[in-house]
């Protein structure tokens, strides 16, 4: 591909190549050093470097856009859209997950507060099984389950000799990846002096 600049063109149509950095700057220097009588030189090698082998924008045969240019532009726009959509989805999932986590944490803490308000003698497996998930939790997490378990550990260590009861409250709800989410809190209840 050969492009020419000629002095037989009308003066107002003469346009020196734009000066700038890199290859454009070299073109400008070539323009100044070229033959003043004809002002003709070949820039095909520089233009092919600049255009990565595609047709030059100065070519008189250029009409419209090459298919590869359209594909490249659409690919860039599509990649941008896809990344934005992924960000939106990830943010929505993060927001939902943090809402669910907060609701589960409050539910577990409320269950432990209720256990703290119960008498030591009332802490039996039957009574603890009555503690179930509140309507607020099931409204936000429809498949969530609250499970409160009692664990007596007599004689294992010095602390257990005092008759402590270990109570664990746990909220579980199913996750998309199969492994259920769990939020749990464990507390220990000691008998009053009168009950020892």
């Amino acid at each position, binding site marked *: 591909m050969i492009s020419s600049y000629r002095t037989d063109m009308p003066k107002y149509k003469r346009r020196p190549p734009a000066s700038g950095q890199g290859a454009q700057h070299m073109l400008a220097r070539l323009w100044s050093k070229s033959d003043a009588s004809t002002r003709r030189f070949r820039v095909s090698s520089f233009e092919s470097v600049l255009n990565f082998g595609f047709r030059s924008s100065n070519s*008189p045969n250029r009409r419209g856009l090459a298919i590869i240019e359209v594909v490249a532009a659409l690919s860039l726009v599509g990649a941008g859209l896809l990344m934005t959509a992924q960000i939106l989805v990830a943010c929505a999932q993060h*927001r939902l997950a*943090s*809402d669910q986590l*907060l*609701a589960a944490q*409050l539910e577990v803490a*409320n269950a432990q*507060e209720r256990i703290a308000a119960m008498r030591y003698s*009332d802490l039996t497996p039957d009574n603890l099984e009555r503690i179930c998930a509140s309507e607020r939790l099931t409204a936000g997490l429809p498949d969530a389950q609250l499970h409160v378990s009692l664990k007596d550990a007599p004689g294992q260590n010095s602390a257990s000799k005092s008759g402590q009861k270990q109570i664990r409250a746990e909220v579980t709800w199913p996750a998309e990846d199969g492994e259920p989410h769990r939020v749990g809190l464990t507390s220990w209840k000691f008998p009053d002096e009168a009950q020892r």
Partner: protein
Amino acid sequence: MKSAQSHRARRGYTLVELMMVIPLMSLTIGGAAVLLHGAWRVEQVMRYHDETINHITQLADQFRRDVHAANSASIDKPSGEGKLPSFFLSLNDGRQAQYQLDNFFCVERTMRRGDVVLAHESFALPPKSAITFEVGRPNTQPTLSKDQASLIISYPLAGGDFSSSRELRIDATLGTTRDEARLQEGHK
């Protein structure tokens, strides 16, 4: 012949090309601007949401600490339009903690001893939030041996009205800190 070719040499763009390119460039730039604005909005919403969750968690922790340390609790419901209820906790050493929702949807916690303000904190809630307080012994089986105080936060979801709202409940048992201290003294 050469002269004719040179006159036919393409210089500049036709009007049709410009009319095609300028709207396409406008569309591309507009699309990029919309994408950037959307990403910026998402970042803002996510940061605000995280801050809200953080504030609610801190409020729950502080409320529970105060209720655990309190000897008694009361609710002041002033009569009149637009007046918001206050929740009072009587602590040791003559201190009193007050919880109240202000007009900017922030829960204000004020710790006083007499007329002297010892501490003041503010916990931001989502816009259009409403809070209610409850004190007493819930009717559960088995019956509870201590009173409980509850702070219930209601706030609308994305729509802005309460047709779809979320409700968070923070329960706390009164006087557990005092009981723990008594238990520790018994062990000594």
